[in-house]
């Protein structure tokens, strides 16, 4: 963790341990180079998971969370970065191909756009669907009624 | 009597099938009528008591060659063929050629009719039809004893053609 701080200085905003888990918060602009460093120098060779959390009250509402795992060190690392609504986040697909579907899911559920991801389209929901269901301001009963009506021929899916 | 009815039935079927082969737009339909025509021809062999020829006609032409035909036709994009002009416009040449063919056939028939005079273009078979038994063996004897060299030459020719087709058709190895 200290090595990250030393290498990237200001770009690593915070670093702490929560319940024995290493967490880094980094600057979105430097995300790709930090990930590159993590994979090549620090041997975090597997991207276990990539997801996001929505905090609507914060200035930058989306928190993108990358869970990494290192086979040689048998260690996990969490890298976080923040993005406002509509802001582009650099894609890590060139670092870990595994990010392909995970970033698509993030886009599908939160509407976060990843820069450098060539096929960023919806993955779980239909392509024409409106709305991003995992945002906090998206109600649990809310759905794209126009789509349901048009494609399924029913008034509501509920 | 029965033979006559059967002959006209099969002959008519063969001609009808042949006409439909060239007039159908859809290539698969054409193939189906070609099969019909070939089967009718096989039926004609049967009326002549040539059982072996009948069976070989079915196995080779219907069961073998036509399957490959249909196989290839299915792979071709039929929609293109459906929108193309089916007949070309050289009516005059076609008419002339068919007239020549007709004249030739008529002449041959006329000559054959007068065969009793001794001038035989098409000598009638002298084997009484009913006595032909086991003509499979006869064909075998003919092919493998009397005509063994032409037969083998034809086989080798086919083999060469086969190898050539494979070599030419092979896209990659």
């Amino acid at each position, binding site marked *: 963790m200290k090595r990250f701080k030393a290498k990237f200085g200001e770009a690593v905003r915070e670093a702490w341990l929560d319940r024995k888990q290493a967490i880094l918060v980094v600057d979105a602009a430097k995300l790709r180079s930090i990930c590159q460093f993590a994979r090549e120098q620090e041997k975090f060779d597997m991207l276990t998971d990539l997801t996001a959390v929505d905090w609507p009250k914060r200035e930058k509402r989306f928190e993108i969370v990358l869970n990494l795992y290192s086979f040689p060190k048998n260690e996990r690392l969490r890298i976080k970065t923040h993005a406002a609504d509509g802001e582009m986040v650099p894609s890590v697909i060139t670092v870990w191909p595994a990010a392909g579907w995970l970033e698509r899911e993030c886009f599908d559920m939160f509407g976060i756009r990843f820069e450098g991801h060539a096929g960023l389209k919806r993955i779980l929901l239909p392509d024409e669907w409106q709305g991003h269901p995992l945002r906090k301001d998206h109600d649990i009963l809310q759905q794209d009624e126009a789509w349901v009506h048009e494609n399924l021929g029913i008034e509501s899916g509920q | 009597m029965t033979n006559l009815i059967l002959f006209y039935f099969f002959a008519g079927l063969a001609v009808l099938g042949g006409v439909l082969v060239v007039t159908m737009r859809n290539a698969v339909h054409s193939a189906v009528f070609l099969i019909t025509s070939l089967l009718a021809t096989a039926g004609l062999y049967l009326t002549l008591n040539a059982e072996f020829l009948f069976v070989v006609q079915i*196995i080779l032409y219907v069961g*073998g060659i036509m399957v490959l035909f*249909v196989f290839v036709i299915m792979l071709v994009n039929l929609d293109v063929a459906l929108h193309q002009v089916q007949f070309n416009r050289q009516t005059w040449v076609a008419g002339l050629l068919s007239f020549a063919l007709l004249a030739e056939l008529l002449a041959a028939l006329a000559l054959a009719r007068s065969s009793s005079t001794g001038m035989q273009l098409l000598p009638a078979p002298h084997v009484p039809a009913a006595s032909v038994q086991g003509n499979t063996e006869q064909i075998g004897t003919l092919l493998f004893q009397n005509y063994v060299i032409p037969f083998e030459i034809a086989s080798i020719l086919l083999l060469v053609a086969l190898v050539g087709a494979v070599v030419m058709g092979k896209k990659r190895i």
Partner: protein
Amino acid sequence: MLQEAYFILSNYIWQIVDGLVIVAIFPLLAGYVVLLERKVMADMQARLGPMRVGPHGLLQPLADAVKLMIKEDIIPESADRAIFWLAPVLSVFAGMLSFAAIPVGPGFLIADMNIGLLFIFAVSSMGIFGIVLGGWASNSHYSLMGALRSSAQLVSYEVAVGMAMVSGLLLAGTLSMKDIVGYQAHSGFWLVFVAPVGFVIYLVGSVAETNRAPFDLPEAESELVAGYMTEYSGFRWALYFLAEYSNMVVVGSVATTLFLGGWLRPFAGTPAFHFLDYAPPLVMLGVTGYCVYRIPKQTGWDQKFIMAIFTGICFVITVPLAAALPHPVAGWQAGVHGAFWFIAKVMAYVYVFLWARFTFPRYRFDQLMQLGWHYLIPLSIVNVMGVATAIVLHREAGWNPVVSIGVTLVVTVLAALWLVRAGERREQATLKSAA
């Protein structure tokens, strides 16, 4: 004209009746082969199989038939209607027509053609069109791929199957089904003992010819949904099914006639085994007895009644078999006994099909083609040459038949082993290049 018609009728009346009987009875028989298959499958998979319709599912085929007949008849919108309609009919036609030349017993055959075997071969080769045209007419990718696979597969395996038949034919020296059996009766040996390699090739090739597992690629349900039958339903689908099962019985019959001695009893020429003549009635009596034993165990009077009817049918079959006993080698008695042995052999052959189906995984298409072209066809050619050599050695050079057959058999088996070795080497090479 009228006289002529009368002449035809009086001459061919038995053939027509025979034909009608076969057309009427055969679908039922095929239904019971399906039941047999399901029961055998259940037995191999530790379960019971159909048990609901009738005692032990004995009426299941009838229920299935009724269900299929009254199902909605669907023709896909973009299908080629005429050919979609024609294809299954063609399949069934080819399957049924083959029965004309199959000698079930000494007197039980519709047409004794002197080209019988070739006739069956020719007619069944026409059955391909039912599959190919049906697959094309459905206008669906799965159907088309099934049809393509099917035509390629059948054309490839027809060569091997034909060659395997030739090895038997060379020995018998005739194409007439009746005379082939006659030859085996005369020589005292079933041809399977003289040309075993040919029989094995025929067995494998016939499984492929009938599209049965492990060669059921044209209808491989886990890959192509149902292959050429994907778009078919109801009665048309039933026709395809009928064709498949009739083809199974046809290849079984051909194998029985050509290699397994047709209607002959095992050890037909050996007086010491004459007691085997008592087997058919005894077996049927045993089946009847078992049915009687099962009657009281059925639940409900209707089930008991159906079981009783089946008992009756078994008994009715037993009676002529028993009545034929005094002279089981002549006249109608021979026909009855012959039919029993013939059907028993065909069923044994079909059982091998089922056995293979429930044991083996499915081949992949390229592997199937490889098996056909790299192993079966070369081997079948070697086998034909071997058998021909054996015949020449015995008949022209006067060798002992056992020695001449043994020598050529050894050569053929060596060739087979060499083929397998070469194949393995090729496989290793491809695996290496892949890795």
